[in-house]
C-alpha cells in the first residue's frame, strides 16, 4: 500500500516537474516587446496620474507622515465646509432682509393684482445689495418663482370671506320652500304678486265707486227737475 502511494506521488512529482521545467518558447520576450511597442500608450506629459497615485500612496500608507497628511487634509476640508456654510447662511439671510424691505417699501405705492406674482421691481433690488462673497452673486436665483419670494400679507392673493350662517328668517324661508303648498309658493313670485295686487285694487275701486245714473223717464209723468229749480232763488226774486 505504501509502495503504491509512493508510486502515485512519483507520478504527481513527475508531472509537476515537467510543468516546472517547461521552457518558454524562443523569441517570446521579443514578441512581447513588439506587442508592447504596437500597443497604444497613455499620453506623455500628463503628470496628474502621477500626482494622484502619489497622494493615493500617501493615504494608503501607515507612516507618520501619511497620518499627518490625512489629518491635515481632513481638517482643511472641515474648515472649508464650515466657512462655506457660514457664507451661505449670511448670504441667504441678507437676501431675505433686502427682499422684505423692498416689498414693504413698494406695498403702499402700488399693490400688484393678487393673481400675478410679485413684479420685477422689488426683485431686482437685492442684486444691487453688496454680498459677502461676490461670486455668490453669479448664481441666478429663480426670483420669478412665487414660492421662493417672501411676500407680505398685503401682497397675498385675496380670498372671499367664508359664508355667514343663515338668519332666522332665512331659515324659515328655507323651511317653507321645502314644506309649503306650491300654490302659496307660486304666490310669492313677483309677477303673480303684482297681478294679485292689481286685482285687489280693481275690486276696491269697484266697491267704492259712485253708482251709475238712472236712465231718464220717457214721458212728463214726473216733473222735470230743472237745474235752475234746484238752484236757490236770489234775493228780491219771487217764485
Amino acid at each position, binding site marked *: 500500500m505504501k509502495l*503504491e*502511494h509512493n508510486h*502515485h*506521488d512519483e*507520478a*504527481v512529482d*513527475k*508531472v*509537476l*516537474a*515537467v*510543468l*516546472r521545467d*517547461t*521552457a*518558454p*518558447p524562443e523569441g*517570446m*520576450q521579443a*514578441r*512581447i*516587446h513588439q*506587442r*508592447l511597442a504596437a*500597443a497604444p*500608450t*497613455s499620453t506623455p506629459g500628463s*503628470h496628474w*496620474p*502621477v*500626482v494622484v*497615485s*502619489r497622494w*493615493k*500612496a500617501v493615504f*494608503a500608507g501607515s507612516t507618520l507622515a501619511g497620518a499627518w497628511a490625512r489629518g491635515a487634509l481632513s481638517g482643511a476640508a472641515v474648515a472649508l465646509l464650515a466657512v462655506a456654510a457660514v457664507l451661505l447662511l449670511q448670504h441667504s439671510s441678507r437676501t431675505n432682509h433686502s427682499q422684505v424691505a423692498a416689498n414693504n417699501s413698494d406695498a403702499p405705492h402700488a399693490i400688484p393684482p393678487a393673481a400675478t406674482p410679485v413684479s420685477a421691481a422689488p426683485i431686482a433690488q437685492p442684486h444691487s445689495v453688496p454680498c459677502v462673497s461676490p461670486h455668490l452673486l453669479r448664481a441666478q436665483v429663480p426670483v420669478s418663482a412665487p414660492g421662493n419670494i417672501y411676500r407680505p400679507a398685503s401682497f397675498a392673493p385675496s380670498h372671499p370671506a367664508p359664508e355667514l350662517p343663515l338668519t332666522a328668517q332665512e331659515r324659515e324661508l328655507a323651511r317653507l320652500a321645502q314644506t309649503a303648498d306650491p300654490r302659496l309658493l307660486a304666490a310669492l313670485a313677483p309677477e303673480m304678486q303684482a297681478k294679485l295686487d292689481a286685482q285687489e285694487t280693481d275690486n276696491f275701486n269697484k266697491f267704492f265707486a259712485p253708482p251709475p245714473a238712472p236712465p231718464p223717464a220717457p214721458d212728463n209723468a214726473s216733473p222735470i227737475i230743472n237745474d235752475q229749480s234746484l238752484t236757490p232763488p236770489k234775493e228780491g226774486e219771487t217764485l
Partner: protein
Amino acid sequence: MAAIGEQSLQWFAAERAEAVPDLTTLVRDHSGLLYRVAFSVLRNPAEAEDVVQDIFLRVLQRQRELSGIIDIRPWLVRIALNLALDRRRRIRPDQMDDLFAAGLVATGIPADERLAEASRVRRVLDAVEGLPKKEREALLLSAMDDLSTAEIAAVLGSSESSVRSLLFRARTRLRNRLAERGSA
C-alpha cells in the same frame, strides 16, 4: 507658485523613476515564471504565451500604479493565474492533455509501455483538474521553484500555514484518487 508646482512634479517623476522598475526589466525577469504559471493551468504553449503578453499589456496600461505595489512578483503571478483561468474557460485544456501526456513519455521505450505511461500521466492530470480550486492553485504554484510559500500565500490571499494545509490536503486527495482509479 508655478516653480513650486514644477519642482514637485519633477520630484514625483524622479521618485517614480526610482521606485518603478522598467518594463523591459520586468519582461526579462518575470516572463519565464509567468509563462510557466500560465502553462501549468492551460498546458498549451501558444495560449500561455498569449497570457504573458496580455499580462505585460496590462502592466503597460497601469504603469503609473506600479509605484503603489509593494511586491511586484506575487502581483504579476496573481494576474497570470487569473488570466489563465479566464482563458481556460474558453478553451478545453483536456484536449491538450493527450498531446502533453504523449510528449512527457520517453521515446526510447516500446509502444505499449509508452501508451501505459501516457495513460498514467493523463490520469494524474485529470486528478489534478478534479481538485478544489484553492488546492489546485496551491499545488500548481508550489511546483514553481521560484515561488516561496510566503509568495504563494500572497498570491492566494491567505496565510502561509493555510497554504501548507492546502498543499497537504491536495497531495492526500491526489494520492487517494489515483489509488481509486488505479485499482478500478
